[in-house]
């Protein structure tokens, strides 16, 4: 046992001195806590975006494809003036919108059933069933759909057994739409579910007491309260479709290129990184506008 003089202050180690400093200066404490995540955010995330922005203004030497750091708008001019790139951008946005709307329509009844009707046990099973596909690789699931759609695949085999004519949707935009809807559906169900779960059942009862029939209650009470959830889910389905290229590569056909494919081809095939960067900025701008709109609908409270 060490004996210490009773009046002597405890010996100050470096640790306790730092701790004292942090106690006296709260802003220092907050800064130290926030520095690692903030550094990560700035250097990895924002810096990458800044680099993307800068690269978009460069060119490549057409013959050797080496990057030439001469500032110009030529990549953007090509993107805006060439009808093919406009068509690809429009196709991508349309696909993202179609997938988002379809997923919202599919997800709402499921989420409503889970949040308001299902018994706790059923609810758990449904949760598991919805999240289970996320355990399997994305590529494996896309390939599975490819096998379903092929001319001699499961879909046409089943139609044949039912006496229906075969449909040839392999390698079409329809196939792409179905696969996107399937792949991103869980990302829509979960936010809608969490929004609906927060709607007090008493509100629905109150609406009924005041004479609101089922449809009216849905339209006037439940839907407005679920809207932030739908908006939150749509951020996922919309942005994920906007940036995808693998589904288009595997199940898309002639005339099925999305922005992601052009970016991929520009980098991986023509080695035109500046052009890829310029086109990649397009989804960034669209998402910025979209997120602004979604925030006004209260999407971020439902996340």
């Amino acid at each position, binding site marked *: 046992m060490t004996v210490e003089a009773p009046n002597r202050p405890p010996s100050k180690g470096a640790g306790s001195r730092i701790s004292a400093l942090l106690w006296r200066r709260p802003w220092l404490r907050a800064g130290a806590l926030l520095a690692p995540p903030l550094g990560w955010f700035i250097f990895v995330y924002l810096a*990458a975006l800044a*680099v*993307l922005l*800068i*690269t978009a203004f460069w060119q*490549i*030497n*057409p*013959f*050797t*494809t*080496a*990057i*030439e*750091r001469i500032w110009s708008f030529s990549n953007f001019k090509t993107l805006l003036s*060439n009808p*093919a*790139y406009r*068509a*690809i951008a429009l196709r991508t946005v349309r696909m993202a919108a179609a997938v988002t709307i379809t997923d919202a329509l599919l997800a709402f009844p499921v989420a409503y059933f889970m949040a308001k009707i299902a018994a706790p046990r059923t609810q758990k099973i449904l949760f598991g069933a919805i999240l289970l596909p996320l355990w399997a*690789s994305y*590529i*494996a699931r896309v*390939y599975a759909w*490819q*096998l379903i759609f*092929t*001319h*001699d*695949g499961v879909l046409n085999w089943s139609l044949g057994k039912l006496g229906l004519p075969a449909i*040839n949707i*392999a*390698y079409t935009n329809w196939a792409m739409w179905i696969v996107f809807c399937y792949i991103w559906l869980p990302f829509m169900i979960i936010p809608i579910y969490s929004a609906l779960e927060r709607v007090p059942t008493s509100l629905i009862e109150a609406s009924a007491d005041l004479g609101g029939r089922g449809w009216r209650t849905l339209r006037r009470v439940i839907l407005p309260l679920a809207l932030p959830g739908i908006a939150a889910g749509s951020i996922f389905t919309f942005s994920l479709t906007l940036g995808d*290229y*693998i589904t288009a*590569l*595997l199940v*898309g*056909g*002639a*005339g099925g*290129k999305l922005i992601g494919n*052009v970016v*991929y*081809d520009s*980098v*991986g*095939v*023509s*080695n035109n*990184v500046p052009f*890829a*960067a310029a086109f990649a900025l397009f989804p960034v701008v669209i998402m910025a506008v979209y997120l602004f709109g979604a925030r006004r609908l209260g999407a971020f409270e439902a996340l």
Partner: protein
Amino acid sequence: MKSRRHLNRKLGLVAAALALIASACGGSGGSPSSKAAPGGQPPTAGMKPQSSIGKGEGTLNLIAWEGYAQPDWVKPFEQQTGCQVHAKYAGSSDEMVTLMRGGGGGQYDLVSASGDADLRLIYGGDVKPVNVKLIPDWQNFFPQFQAPAFNTISGVHYGVSLQWGPNVLLYNTKDYSHAPTSWSALYDPKNKGQVTVPDNPIQIADAALYLSKTKPSLGIKDPYELDQAQFQAAISLLKQQRPLVRKYWALASQEISMFKNGDASVGAAWPYQTNALKASGVSVADTIPQEGATGWADTWLLATKAPHPNCAYQWMKWVSTPKVQAQQAISFGETPVNSKACPIMDQLAKGSCAQYHANDPSYSSSIAFWKTPLANCGNGKTDCMAYSDWQQAWTTEVTG
């Protein structure tokens, strides 16, 4: 296998994203002399190749076409030399060029580039001179493949020729009672939704070759040397073809799967796809139509910053030997450049030497071999469409 390749593509995108950051943060992804233009000497022409093969470095990194690094000849090579082979498969010549330049080069040792990529790599300074004296079998190559214009400039060799072959018309024999004899099968509205062709700008040459026979008034002499009018004619033919195309394939495995599952009945292919489909019991056949065919001639080019040069030379030596030449020819369905491979081919598969014309050097003169389209196409006017125009038209006017 399939999914692994696509995983590779996914990883490739991650790598590309990193390259994007790297290229902006100083290390330009390009070559030392980006201003080099064709006509002058390639930037690496003055580099002195090594005069002997030293001890192997234990590793060899290849960029290759699917099917070019099969265990049949990779395993014995690894056992003999101790060089562990890592092959990265590329889906197109453009991808090969990009991979060679990724991160400033220095990752890969050799690339099995086709003629349409060779000049870009040579003039881009991505590959360097090779000492063919260190490859004994080079003496046995057919003369036209010892120093062909696509890999040898002013007597300096930038690699060793490997194999060559035609681009064939592949069709399902169930759908075609009479074998098609013309490339018109790929442009016939009757075949709507049944056609598949490679997603590759060099396909424009196939359209040009077809037009050179069917529309002589255009005056197309060489499908890789097209002036504005000839080029536009080829593009508009391809635009007419697009509604017929089910899918532009990026990897040979995609075309194989389409023929297997009945999603395509006619397409442009390599003999490799025919062999693979026949092996899995699909009723297909291929033909070189009456208009002739384009073709590829591949070369193992040595990277300027090859980290394992001794293993690279060992590999060039190994793949040039008659046995490996014959093995690869039969496995892929292509023609060896080594004149001594013919008898071994017949040992491995009866009649294969004649089937692939491995004993008939004159046959190769009927093939329009891939080469990089250049603006300066030798007519003195520099008015030909350059490869970058081909790439752009392919994306924006044909497949986009």
